[in-house]
């Protein structure tokens, strides 16, 4: 076990280890049997068109999704284990914060639930770029501020793994850049990030890309390797080429 400034890193264990995961929602098989690994202290992008199963996969990884079969291990424990609840931060697509409270009041509540110290509230506000909006009622925030308030809640208590479902939707380019910088900083401190997006240009910021299509893994590679393999300069084109070559 080696240690960085921020988060403990366990040698030889993937942060996320998914094997033959099958998820059925209603009559639809969303994930027919996916396997993947996510390395510790990296930023991994989960990309794919909407409806490809990204959110379902993320929900399964944080343990809020009923799964039909297969196994998921997160930080060495089965997904959804009680011991993971203070070690994994999760941001849903819908900003799940209380609209009638201020940003700070939201964070203070979630911090108390986590047993995180009071200073973590200020740290989370800073990391999400919400220092000036702390005392604003969440219901009055703009769309971008709202999703950052939700992100700030997930940063409390210094989780070792952050699972973020489309965190940059509705953000302007400047904020998006800042947010990816934050993600990079967290990864440098040892935090593992799994970030979903349907915008290909965000893939550039990731160490590794998981391309999802119709519940299956189209590619699991670094951005550079993906470009080399497809002979495409930009990742958008690379993705399209992969889709076409697999039919």
């Amino acid at each position, binding site marked *: 076990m080696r240690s960085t400034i921020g988060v403990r890193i366990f040698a030889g264990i993937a942060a996320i280890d998914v094997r033959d995961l099958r998820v059925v929602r209603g009559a639809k098989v969303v994930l027919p049997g996916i396997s993947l690994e996510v390395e510790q202290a990296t930023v991994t992008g989960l990309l794919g068109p909407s409806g490809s199963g990204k959110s379902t996969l993320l929900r399964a990884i944080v343990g*809020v999704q009923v799964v039909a079969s297969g196994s998921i291990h997160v930080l060495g424990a089965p997904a959804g284990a009680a011991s993971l*609840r203070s070690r994994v931060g999760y941001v849903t697509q819908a900003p799940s*914060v*209380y609209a009638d409270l201020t940003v700070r*009041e939201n964070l203070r509540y979630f911090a108390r*639930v986590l047993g995180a110290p009071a200073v973590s509230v200020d740290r989370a506000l800073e990391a999400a770029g919400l220092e000036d909006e702390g005392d604003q*009622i969440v219901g009055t925030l703009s769309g971008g501020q709202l999703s950052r308030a939700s992100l700030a809640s997930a940063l409390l208590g210094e989780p070792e793994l952050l699972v973020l479902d489309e965190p940059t939707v509705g953000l302007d380019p400047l904020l998006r850049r800042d947010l990816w910088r934050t993600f990079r900083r967290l990864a440098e401190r040892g935090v593992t990030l799994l970030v979903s997006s349907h915008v290909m240009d965000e893939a550039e910021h990731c160490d590794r890309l998981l391309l999802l299509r119709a519940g299956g893994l189209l590619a699991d590679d670094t951005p550079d390797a993906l470009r080399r393999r497809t002979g495409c300069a930009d990742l958008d084109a690379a993705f399209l080429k992969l889709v076409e070559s697999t039919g």
Partner: protein
Amino acid sequence: MSGRVTFATAMRVLLQLRRDPRTLALLFAVPPVLIALFRYVFDGQPQTFDRIGGPLVGIFPFIMMFVITSIAMLRERTTGTLERLMTLPLAKADLLAGYALAFAAVAVVQASVTSAVAFGLLGLDVAGSVAAVIGLAVLNAILGMSLGLFVSAFARTEFQAVQFLPAFVFPQLLLCGLLVPRGRMAGALDWASTVMPLTWAFDGLDHAVRGGAAGIVLRDTAIVVGVTVVALALAASTLRRRTS
């Protein structure tokens, strides 16, 4: 379950209520106004007002907490905050107890205000103890809250949740003995009323208001508390960490 998380949850729920002054005003003003309305509707029959006024003080919190909690919990479900909480180190009991604590505090204020108006201003005459009426009012509030938490799982929208009031509460109000003694109802209704929680809540209040019969009040209180515990257990079973 952790005292810290329960307390934090109760404070959060109260803070949300405080941010909604109109709801708070309605919570504290509507019951006294309705009691006053009853007083003057039965202007010519003061003995009727004396009979139902006291128990009403303790029944209002049941009705209002039922509606408020079912909508509050529905909101937690629809806005995703419940899903977030379920991924955090929070026991289901923390959430339920937090809600219970917060709404019990609201019920204390609501029942006190209503009592002050009913017994002070309106001259409601009771032989029994006002403190007992307030105490039972708080228990009934928690009963209403527990049932509200449970039924909220069966509503997908706030429109549906509001309909649970006429669906679940009105029949209980009609049959509990408040309007007509149960013995004078059709036999089937009398029988049906025995399995309705509000019947026992009313019966306890009725006896407490008239004074004496401490044994019956205790029995009814035990029934109310028992149903509350069952409803909370059922509500806990509707809080799922994993959903499909």
